[in-house]
């Protein structure tokens, strides 16, 4: 057996570190999806009538749609009637401070390495923690409020700032955009809401940790970030989910809106449960993320590190509407065992002098399949649009797959579009070189993979970059004997 094969074999033996379950009483909607489910969710959240109607409209549209089949992933048919669409931890009163939060819940976060109290004290990161479907604690709110920044759960925003929610919800990702966004629009439970007023530079990284906990509960987050003229915000999203046998559905929607001269940086570290080494269990992650650079000179930058989920279906995109606006997409997608990822981006150039940059790094191991799918579209009036795309694939072993599907549509002859793609294998030579310097095989693989992903990891905010590096190492832990 060659070195690579050994790595491969051992790779499958590393266990998912976040596989534990909290015993917290749940208050759930009955299984299945119909109009009553949606009314139940909306009522639970005491939503205004317009939002209920908005949900119902999405639901009836969803009924007319078919699950997409164009992606390069396969999975058993999802029974949408066998899913619990709403689960909220039972708590009698809304917590006003961390002291009032269920200690077991806080412990869960601690085991994930996200001690809210510690974060609150030390890091200067405001954390809006989503536990299953309801936000349990929001920190730093006061400090942000002084600047006029709104950072709260989506449900809270619906109550407190309905005019903003109503104005922007569905404005970037319409209800009927695709099968999963329609589903999300009908049943979304909670998520984050963020509003940066004109000219304000958000002084801290805003961070949310998502976590799926209840068995058979789908999770349908909805995030909306609005950056007004000349404002700036950096938003971090991290995910971990405990171990489950049944596949769980996750269909989130994220909408970003950047006005003139505004900049939004959105970073994700996704570590949902990938399933066991035989491909049993794991999260189905169907996410619609899209941002619009609505104003001139605005900028949206997506950075993602995807190491989890059994199936990932995700294309964080930018609509470059304003002149001189910039869209960026930096991605690391790691698949192992039976994981499948079909991920990439869409850059839609509408305004003049719009620029986009795509850097995608795929790492495949085991018998996993890793696809990059990207669209660069230049519309007629987008004079001097520019795009640069780089898609690299790294293969570990010879049983996995890496695929690249770049689509380019240019309707303006002044556009400049560049695409570079490489495929490489972790060489035995590289590993031996490390070994010969006294570095063990596990660390060698981690070192090489981290180096390969560096360009993307560098885009992450400091504290996240460290976590992402650890996560890559963790994913590779036990990969060699």
């Amino acid at each position, binding site marked *: 057996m*060659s*070195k690579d094969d050994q790595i491969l074999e051992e790779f499958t033996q590393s266990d998912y570190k976040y596989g534990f379950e909290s015993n917290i009483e749940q208050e759930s909607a009955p299984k299945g999806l119909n109009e009553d489910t949606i009314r139940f969710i909306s009522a639970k959240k005491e939503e205004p009538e317009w939002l209920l109607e908005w949900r119902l409209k999405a639901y009836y549209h969803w009924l007319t749609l078919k699950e997409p089949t164009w992606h390069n992933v396969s999975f058993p048919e999802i029974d949408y009637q066998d899913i619990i669409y709403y689960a909220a931890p039972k708590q009698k009163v809304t917590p006003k401070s961390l002291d009032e939060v269920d200690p077991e819940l806080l412990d869960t976060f601690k085991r994930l390495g996200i001690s809210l109290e510690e974060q609150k004290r030390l890091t200067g990161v405001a954390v809006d923690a989503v536990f299953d479907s309801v936000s349990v604690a929001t920190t730093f709110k006061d400090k942000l409020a002084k600047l006029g920044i709104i950072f709260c759960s989506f449900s809270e925003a619906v109550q407190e700032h309905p005019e903003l929610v109503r104005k922007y919800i569905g404005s970037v990702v319409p209800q009927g955009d695709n099968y999963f966004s329609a589903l999300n629009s009908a049943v979304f439970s909670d998520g984050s809401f963020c509003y940066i007023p004109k000219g304000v530079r958000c002084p801290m990284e805003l961070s949310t940790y998502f976590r799926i906990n209840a068995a058979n509960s789908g999770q349908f987050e909805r995030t909306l970030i609005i950056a007004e003229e000349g404002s700036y915000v950096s938003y971090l999203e991290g995910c971990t989910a405990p171990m489950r046998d049944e596949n769980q559905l996750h269909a989130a929607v994220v909408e970003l809106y950047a006005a003139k001269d505004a900049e939004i940086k959105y970073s994700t570290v996704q570590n949902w449960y990938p399933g066991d080494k035989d491909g049993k269990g794991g999260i189905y992650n169907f996410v619609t993320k899209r941002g619009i650079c609505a104003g001139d000179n605005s900028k949206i930058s997506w950075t993602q590190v995807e190491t989890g989920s059994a199936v990932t279906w995700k294309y964080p995109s930018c609509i470059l509407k304003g002149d001189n606006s910039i869209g960026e997409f930096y991605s690391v997608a790691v698949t192992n065992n039976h994981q499948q990822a079909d991920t990439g981006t869409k850059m839609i150039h509408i305004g003049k002098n719009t620029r986009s940059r795509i850097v995608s790094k795929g790492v495949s191991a085991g018998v996993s399949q890793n696809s990059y799918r990207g669209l660069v579209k230049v519309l007629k009036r987008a004079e001097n649009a520019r795009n640069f795309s780089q898609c690299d694939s790294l293969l570990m072993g010879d049983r996995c797959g890496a695929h690249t599907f770049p689509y380019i549509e240019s309707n303006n002859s002044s556009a400049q579009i560049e695409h570079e793609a490489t495929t490489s294998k972790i*060489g*035995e*030579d*590289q590993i*031996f*070189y*490390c*070994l*010969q*310097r*006294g*570095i*063990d*095989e596990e*660390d060698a693989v981690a*070192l*090489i993979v*981290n*180096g*390969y*992903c*560096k*360009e993307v990891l560098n885009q992450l905010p400091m504290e996240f970059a460290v976590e992402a590096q650890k996560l890559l190492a963790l994913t590779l832990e036990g990969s060699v004997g």
Partner: protein
Amino acid sequence: MIEQLRNQKGYPKRIAFLILLLNPIATMLKIKELHARVEEKEILKGIDLDIKPGEVHAIMGPNGSGKSTLASVLAGREDFEVTSGSVEYMGQDLLEMEPEERAREGVFLAFQYPVEIPGVSTTNFLKTALNQVRQHKGKDPLDAVAFLKRMKEKMKLVEIDQSLLSRSLNEGFSGGEKKRNEIFQMAMLEPTLAILDETDSGLDIDALRIVANGVNALRNQDNATIVVTHYQRLLDYIVPDFVHVLYNGRIVKSGSKELALELEDKGYDWIKATADAAI
């Protein structure tokens, strides 16, 4: 005599050296009847070699004679299968040790073709390596300041620039830069047994001098060096105590440094003719 030594400063070092001298394991490396093959092809056909601390051995020979194979086998490369024979290193069975274990025990190979590792700086790479070696020896990892200090010190030895060390390991390095980087790593790791595999290939005369100066500066009574080379040229700068000529998987001639000169003068055909005649 021991009493006398005990009263002197630096006693422990001296006594250690004395023990090394008197002890049967004074031989650092003992290769006996070593046979190795790659796939079905036998390349090493019975190598015998003894190396003591403080010595520099040059291994010369025509292309395909097995020089690089010998270096690789000693470093523990898996592509080569040892079919018989033994290698004892510091009293241990070298062939039983994993490659990283050998490295941590002080075996260093300066590669003929150093590999590139994109995105990993030499600094970061060496820090990882050095600290794993230290951990193996039960030492604490070097902190950033101590590491930097050591780097600065060793950089001078091989006249290597800081900016080179911040770049991805060997990526886009010239041939000379790669070789200098190898010797720099050697300086940082301070090996007991250094094996230089064709370190002179692709070097111009200035780079050759720099690399050789580095190697010479690292020589002491406790370490040993194996210089694998095709040409005599390098041996003008790194003067060996012994020269061995490898041909067709065997050491066919050993001698002092003059042998290298004779070889240069007469060419490998001289050796080939003699060796083939002996069969």
